[in-house]
């Protein structure tokens, strides 16, 4: 017997090890938060999902350098910008440093096709003469040193016009040649190549940024402040991991202490852990089989939800009695346990029906895990447990507790006032009922958000809420539409509806515009003649402008500039961030800053070109969340109906089903009502947590309802339930202390739920009357 038991134990551990190897070699953990967001349906929502993380605005890191005098900070800013411009992790770095080399020399002749000068002027004698006279004046002015070098190649100063055009409209104060905030920090904007909501890529980029800064001479005495969506992603990730770690540690210790106190047996503790371990590993193994990539959050939440499975071995351990083998105990318990397992699986099916990738994974994981844990509790664990066990029914105090509970008044009318109170609380609760704002779940410290808002304001960094979207068949059609938007948006800036804007056509005009400009460029003999005539009477050296004539000739005959060719220059990266191919069409995404009158801007955009529109990301995300919630509510409703049917069938009695389902339903609404009274708007995570709590509550009600006339068995039920309740309160009560809103929402809801479910299933259980009859 002993040998068989040892063999089984070894076999079980071997199976676990095998699953472990499968998981370790096959599991690919993803970090894209979007798989935990609802599936988009409208075009706006689809764009929003693409935007979350990938759009130009969400890839911006805002950097402030503080400490030391202005000169030191400016030189650090310049050094950092120089280092990051060479780093492939960053597509764009701006710090206010004037950079004529923005167009590399191979593309320099293209300035005549990029600059709007030729739209209104032509390089004839009159224009050139006027320009040259102005340059002569410039040479006699303080700007001389600045312009002297440009003069031979660029007498009409197209490079400066382009630089001006490409400089953000609202830029911070320039000191020592770089941007400074009003608090005297040197400012810098860096755009990462990686998506803003990809913690891995962002962590690497931020690490490289910090390393580049630390490597600069004199950076020791200075302080680097980083903010922006990418930085927040990294922060949240680290914070979530840290908190989950310490909460997990404390919960584990508490759980071990609880199990030891409840069963006074180390072997029970260790063996009791096997079904949950089996469930967890089986769940992950199933995920690796069903999905190419498993989300990190699925695993974190999944193990939390799988906590329910710990109830199965607890039930078995508590219901053992002197002289009865564990196998016999589990046989007596099994019908009820099976009902509990089936109903929990049905509750978790609601996640699957939500249609959200991450939640589907969660459902697959928990359902597989629950079944594996349940069946291993039934068919493997009893054969491992020692022959003899201590009957917990004899535990001191338990009988007294049971008597006290039985003595509590259990009026049959109790559900009525509770239901009335629930309705009243929900009706009169302060604040909005639903939490539609996804960002409200951002677990960021307030001062961090304040810093972000301050730097964003100072830098004139784009508004994260609004986005200008142009969709067309080809990249060139997007550029054409974008060009039409430019004058309209300029009007909006003048009308103060808007502070500034970016458009892809500002960097690269469409082909037709380029062609028209090219056509206006004179050929070499014509330009030579016009230049000679224009130079008459001016003191410039005759051959001085040969590079200018060469460049014009190059621009006149060169192939037109396409986004692909432009991509090789540093500016091309900026364009690539705004212009991208999506399936069979192209999308231009431009950022706006300081939107004061969204309606006016939206109207101006829509009237300029039918393919363009203003996207309100907040609105899109709220509509997305609302749609998401409707789906979850439907799924919950369906799951509830299924539950009623299952329970009624399992108990073969409407009356008994009522005794199980009524306290569960009432407690669920009571949690909702109490949270609403506390002013907490209900978010998706609350709904998920309510389902989990309902699953737990259902177990309590099922076991309390169990019709046994045996007071010892009732004490065992009470013992098991109390252990389960304390375990759940321990785990979820700890989560309720978390600073991360998602974890707090789940922790608080489940902890409250467990409490209410326990109390109501006792107060509404039919046992009391029967006990008194005996």
């Amino acid at each position, binding site marked *: 017997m002993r040998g068989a038991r040892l063999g089984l134990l070894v076999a079980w551990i071997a199976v676990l090890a095998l699953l472990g190897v499968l998981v370790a070699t096959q599991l690919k953990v993803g970090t894209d938060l979007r798989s935990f967001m609802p599936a988009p349906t409208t075009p706006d929502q689809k764009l929003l999902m693409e935007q979350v993380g990938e759009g130009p605005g969400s890839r911006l890191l805002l950097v402030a350098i503080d400490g030391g005098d202005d000169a030191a900070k400016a030189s650090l800013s310049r050094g950092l910008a120089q280092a990051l411009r060479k780093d492939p992790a960053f597509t764009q770095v701006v710090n206010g440093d004037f950079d004529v080399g923005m167009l590399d020399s191979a593309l320099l002749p293209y300035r005549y096709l990029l600059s709007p000068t030729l739209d209104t002027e032509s390089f004839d004698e009159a224009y050139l003469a006027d320009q040259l006279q102005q340059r002569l*004046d410039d*040479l*006699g002015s303080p700007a001389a040193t*600045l312009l*002297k070098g440009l*003069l031979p190649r660029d007498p009409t100063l197209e490079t400066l016009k382009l630089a001006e055009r490409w400089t953000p409209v609202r830029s911070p104060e320039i000191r020592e040649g770089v941007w400074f905030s009003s608090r005297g920090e040197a400012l810098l904007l860096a755009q990462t190549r990686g998506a803003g909501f990809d913690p891995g890529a962002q962590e690497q980029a931020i690490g490289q940024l910090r390393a580049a800064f630390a490597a600069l001479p004199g950076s020791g005495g200075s302080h680097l402040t980083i903010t922006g969506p990418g930085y927040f992603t990294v922060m949240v990730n680290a914070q979530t991991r840290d908190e989950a770690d310490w909460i997990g540690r404390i919960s584990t210790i508490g759980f071990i202490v609880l199990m030891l106190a409840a069963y006074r047996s180390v072997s029970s503790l260790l063996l009791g852990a096997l079904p949950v371990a089996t469930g967890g590993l089986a769940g992950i193994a199933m995920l690796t089989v069903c999905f190419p990539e498993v989300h990190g959050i699925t695993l974190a939440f999944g193990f939390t939800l799988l906590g329910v499975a710990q109830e199965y071995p607890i039930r078995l351990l508590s219901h053992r009695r002197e002289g009865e083998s564990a196998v016999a105990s589990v046989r007596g318990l099994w019908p009820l346990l099976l009902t509990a397992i089936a109903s929990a699986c049905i509750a978790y099916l609601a996640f699957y029906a939500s249609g959200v990738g991450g939640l589907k994974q969660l459902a697959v994981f928990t359902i597989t895990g629950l079944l594996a844990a349940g069946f291993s509790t039934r068919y493997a664990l009893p054969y491992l447990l020692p022959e003899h066990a201590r009957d917990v029914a004899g535990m001191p105090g338990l009988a007294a507790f049971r008597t006290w509970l039985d003595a509590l008044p259990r009026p049959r009318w109790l559900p009525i006032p509770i239901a009335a109170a629930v309705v009243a609380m929900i009706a009169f609760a302060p604040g909005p009922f639903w939490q539609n704002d996804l960002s409200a779940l951002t677990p960021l410290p307030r001062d961090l958000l304040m810093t972000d808002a301050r730097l964003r304001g100072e830098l004139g960094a784009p508004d994260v809420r609004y986005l200008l979207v142009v969709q067309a068949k080809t990249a060139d059609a997007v550029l054409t539409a974008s060009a039409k938007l430019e004058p309209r948006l300029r009007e909006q800036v003048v009308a103060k509806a808007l502070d500034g804007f970016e458009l892809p056509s500002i960097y690269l005009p469409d082909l037709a515009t380029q062609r028209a400009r090219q056509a206006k460029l004179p050929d070499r003999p014509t330009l030579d003649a016009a230049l000679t005539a224009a130079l008459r009477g001016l*003191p410039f050296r005759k051959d001085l402008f040969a590079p200018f004539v060469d460049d014009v000739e190059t621009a006149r005959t060169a192939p037109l500039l396409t986004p692909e060719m432009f991509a090789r220059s540093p500016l091309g990266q900026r364009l690539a961030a705004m212009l991208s191919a999506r399936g069979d069409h192209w999308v231009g995404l431009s950022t706006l800053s300081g939107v004061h009158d969204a309606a006016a801007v939206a109207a101006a955009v829509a009237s300029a070109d039918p393919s363009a529109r203003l996207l309100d990301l907040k609105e899109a995300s709220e509509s997305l969340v609302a749609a998401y919630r409707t789906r979850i509510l439907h799924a919950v409703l369906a799951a509830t109906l299924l539950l009623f049917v299952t329970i009624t069938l399992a108990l073969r009695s409407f009356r008994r089903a009522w005794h199980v389902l009524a306290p569960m339903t009432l407690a669920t609404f009571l949690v909702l009502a109490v949270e609403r009274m506390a002013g907490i708007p209900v978010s998706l995570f609350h709904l998920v947590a309510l389902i989990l709590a309902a699953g737990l509550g259902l177990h309590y009600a099922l076991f309390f309802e169990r019709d046994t006339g045996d007071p010892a068995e009732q004490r065992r039920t009470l013992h098991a339930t109390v252990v389960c309740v304390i375990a759940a309160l321990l785990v979820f009560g700890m989560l309720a202390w978390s600073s991360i809103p998602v974890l707090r929402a789940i922790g608080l809801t489940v902890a409250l739920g467990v409490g209410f479910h326990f109390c109501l299933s006792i107060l509404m259980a039919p046992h009391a009357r029967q006990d008194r009859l005996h």
Partner: protein
Amino acid sequence: MRVLDKPLVVSGELAWLGGDRLERRVESPTKEVSTIADGEVTQEREGKKPRSFSLKRAPQLQVLLDSFVALLAGDPSRLGQSFDVTLGRDADRWRLTLTPRDARIAKQIAGIHVYGTGQLARCMRMDESDGDTSIDLLGDLAAKMPAEPTREGLIAQCGGAM
């Protein structure tokens, strides 16, 4: 200037507005007012939008500003901060040679020579490192600007004040 065949002549007034602020008012050939204040250079021309840029982008101007302000304020310690100063004397006449200390600035400005008599500075010559020279004839010397000036002639005229 190397880019020009002949010297470029500009005339007008230069005013020190106190602190680090200079105003340069040009009367001919084109009316233009330039102000250097708070690290910014602002240029205003008739019928044109004002243009401004940071002083840091034109280190030559910063040097000019430093030397002018130090001279006008009679602040030898400030001159000493930015330049190696040598003084040559010949009876009443004097010559001050300023060489920038900062290597970055020295790349653009080879040196500044200020010529004067008694209490008055009469001419200022700035040699840029690329070979260009700018000469400011000050006070009554400005009236003696020849109609067809040459680079050599002007250098002699400026130095001739000594």
